[in-house]
């Protein structure tokens, strides 16, 4: 213990008194704004410099107590991120499905068809280059061979084989598929043949029939065709040369259905009591 000298005690008293005066003055009226600003302008840049140099170190040191929990947190957030991503993707899929279903319902309502909704679970030009799709409905759902399959856009194909819970559909795009068609308005009959990824082909019964590009086709009676009537098939894009009544008149048809992008379709369980004629066709695009 060093006993403070008289001078030291005096200095202490003087400094404390000065400090008390400073506190009083500053507390009353914030008298040292200039002094504070000066200190700020001296220490401010220095603080910036020191922060820039040691800031990362400080942040790193500060993070050490949380390293374990940070790792857990990162894992949890990653998990959450994955979940949300999947949910988002599923939601987009759900939205697309809902839209397809509503269009299918609209088409079924217009044509008075009783439609069983079904999802395409398998697809592709299978063995023998057949254009077939597998649906997730079967005999249990009262699906029988020969039933027409539609989507919200129009004709998809015809049920060929039925299992207990699945069935195989020959698509209208299959080269072996022939559908009886009728031109909307004029009522000219013809046979629509699939052509794979290329456009479909229409062969008219009457070689002298008047057809033009833009005419629209629905399913119609043709021989022993089991397709329900009135389902939109497609639009004529090009008319073959007039053979003068000698050969058959042909035309190219662009189908309404994108056969490579089938997802939600409907099996027509019961057809309409009366032919819906052209009422199911989408509205004619303005020219």
């Amino acid at each position, binding site marked *: 213990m060093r006993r403070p000298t008289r001078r030291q005690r005096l200095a202490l008293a003087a*400094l404390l008194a000065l*400090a008390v005066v400073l506190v009083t003055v500053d507390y009353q009226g914030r008298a040292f704004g200039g002094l504070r600003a000066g*200190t700020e302008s001296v220490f401010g840049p220095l603080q910036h410099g020191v922060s820039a140099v040691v800031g990362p170190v400080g942040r790193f040191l500060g993070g050490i107590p949380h390293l374990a929990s940070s790792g857990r947190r990162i894992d949890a957030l990653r998990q959450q991120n994955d979940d949300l991503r999947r949910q988002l993707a599923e939601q987009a899929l759900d939205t697309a499905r809902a839209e397809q279903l509503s269009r299918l319902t609209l088409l079924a309502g217009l044509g008075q068809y009783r439609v069983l909704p079904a999802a395409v679970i398998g697809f592709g030009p299978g063995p023998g280059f057949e254009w077939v799709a597998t649906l997730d409905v079967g005999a249990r759902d009262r699906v029988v061979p020969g039933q027409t399959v539609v989507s919200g856009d129009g004709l998809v194909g015809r049920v060929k084989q039925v299992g207990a819970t699945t069935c195989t559909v020959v698509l209208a795009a299959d080269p072996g598929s022939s559908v009886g068609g009728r031109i909307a308005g004029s009522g000219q009959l013809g046979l629509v043949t699939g052509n794979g990824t290329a456009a479909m082909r229409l062969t008219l019964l009457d070689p002298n029939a008047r057809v033009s590009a833009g005419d629209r086709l629905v399913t119609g009676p043709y021989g022993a065709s089991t397709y329900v009537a009135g389902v939109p098939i497609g639009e004529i894009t090009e008319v073959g040369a007039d053979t003068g009544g000698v050969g058959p008149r042909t035309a190219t048809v662009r189908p309404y259905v994108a056969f490579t992008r089938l997802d939600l379709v409907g099996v027509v369980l019961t057809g309409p009591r009366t032919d819906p004629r052209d009422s199911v066709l989408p509205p004619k695009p303005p020219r």
Partner: protein
Amino acid sequence: MTAARTAGALLAVCVAVLLQATVISRLPLPGGTPSLVLLLVIAIGFSAGTTAGLFAGFVAGATVDLMSDHPLGVAAICLALGGFVAGTLLDNGTRGVARSLLLVVTIAGVVQLLYAALLALLGARGGSVLHGLAGAVGYDALLAPLVLPVVAAVERRLRSVR
């Protein structure tokens, strides 16, 4: 007190204030923050004597005040007292290390208590100082064995500079 020692003390105070503001106060330590400036003032009083501690404390306190929001002079009172008491109570080398350390921590605790009380009296946020007091004193106890020998060594070196 020589010019070299005065300059050294001032420089040390500036560095301590800077480090306190930029690094130490930002460490997200649980329980409180160590006060490097306070430890430095106590260490100066401890190694350079009562007068040095008193004036170093006053200058450091005034600088802290000017960089803070509370009225000028609060920290100056506390730190000047701290430096003075440290210089009076601690006699360089005549006490054991453990007892010196205990005294340093006690002074630090009392000074911070006084600081909190004054802030509360003036209506500033004294409660926050009081809240982290125990933690702060604990960290001070950890930091003191690092700060004190360094200050003592530098002080001895500067004393020989004439």
